[in-house]
């Protein structure tokens, strides 16, 4: 069901990119109601719309039918957050979000894989952590940029616990995690490796989290970036080096691939069990 959902979302994005004639800095769509193509609970869809409506990065929205799906298009601008994040010396990558529905689909897969807590690292406006709450998972959002954390605090109608902190030094033992999955924000080639390595080191120092922990890495197969010799959309070497194994990869639309033909692969991995 999740693979079909991600495929349908990619098709919707491609159709939308073809017909979109606006000039906004960022744009995304959310289906208005549950359908055969998007079998998402109506209540969940409404919460996703609520997140977009309350989010000050979006300044305009309108309804449009794309293919067979009636949607709301959200137009936004994240330039001021970009400017602030590049001035943050310890910020690895400037803020550029995934689509809200993509965040939902990713968390849906995390839930199906049996994870109980979502920790959104480099969380931007906190959309992944928000979606985890929509799907009744516990969630925590770690973001180093104070301007983005202030933005998250406007969006905590469901409390996804925003923390303004450096994810590489954050004390994860405070969260009493039992079966967590960590979403690492940022491409491998844009500081993601350093960020993921730092968080992996912290988590491996907590005895009950050496196992039962999942990882989601945001990948790219774009030729703009140096490929990883072990592939995995840029993450192969880190996955092998940290004794992880890849479980599944789903491809979803993101803000930064709106004008690209290739979408963003999300690589799900877990610790290799001791034999």
């Amino acid at each position, binding site marked *: 069901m999740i693979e079909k959902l991600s495929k349908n979302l990619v098709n919707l994005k491609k159709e939308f990119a073809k017909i979109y004639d606006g*000039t906004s800095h960022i744009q995304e769509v959310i289906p208005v109601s549950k359908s055969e193509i998007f079998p998402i609970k109506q209540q969940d869809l409404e919460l996703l719309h609520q997140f977009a409506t309350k989010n000050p990065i979006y300044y305009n929205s309108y309804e449009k039918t794309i293919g067979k799906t009636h949607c709301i298009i959200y137009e936004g601008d994240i330039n001021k957050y970009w*400017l602030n994040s590049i001035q943050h010396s310890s910020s690895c990558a400037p803020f550029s979000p995934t689509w809200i529905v993509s965040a939902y689909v990713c968390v849906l897969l995390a839930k199906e894989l049996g994870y109980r807590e979502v920790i959104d690292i480099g969380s931007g406006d906190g959309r992944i952590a928000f979606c985890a709450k929509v799907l009744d998972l516990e969630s925590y959002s770690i973001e180093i940029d104070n301007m983005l954390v202030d933005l998250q605090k406007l969006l905590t109608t469901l409390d996804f616990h925003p923390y303004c902190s450096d994810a590489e030094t954050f004390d994860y033992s405070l969260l009493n995690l039992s079966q967590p999955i960590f979403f690492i924000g940022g491409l491998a080639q844009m500081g993601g490796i350093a960020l993921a390595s730092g968080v992996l080191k912290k988590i491996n120092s907590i005895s009950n989290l050496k196992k039962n922990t999942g990882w989601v890495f945001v990948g790219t197969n774009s030729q703009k970036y140096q490929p990883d010799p072990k592939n995995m959309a840029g993450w192969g070497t880190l996955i092998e080096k940290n004794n992880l194994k890849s479980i599944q990869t789903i491809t979803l639309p993101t803000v930064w691939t709106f004008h690209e033909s290739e979408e963003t692969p999300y690589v799900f991995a877990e610790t290799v069990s001791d034999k």
Partner: protein
Amino acid sequence: MASIDDISSMFHTESEKLEHLINNVTKKSELSIPEIIETYYQIINVSSMSTVLKQQINANEHQTLLDKIAKIDKVISDKFNSNIHPQIMEKLANSIQNTTKNLQSGNEEKSKEEIENKAKEYEELRQIMSTKEFVEQYDKELSHD
């Protein structure tokens, strides 16, 4: 593989193009991003040819060409590296500082049109920043020489 004569003929054409570009740049007080990129590209292009030719030619057989290489090397070193390049670096840094300050001022609510117009200024800032990175890369290579 290209012969020395081919590279030599190409060198003449490209170094003339470079001198023309440098003369143009000297006359202007403001340079556009494409003009900056074109000038650095041509500097790198001619410098690479000069390096290859100096390694391959015989001083007895190609004295005229060697003189031409020395002349253009001097133009690059005295006119461009010591004079124009530091000015470009300074102007790019000032431009980034001023644009950033301008973009960070004024937090009042804006209309859709105003936001989208402002987005163009951010796009210009991104272009200036990536040009500065490119120019800084040239500067690093200069300091390694």
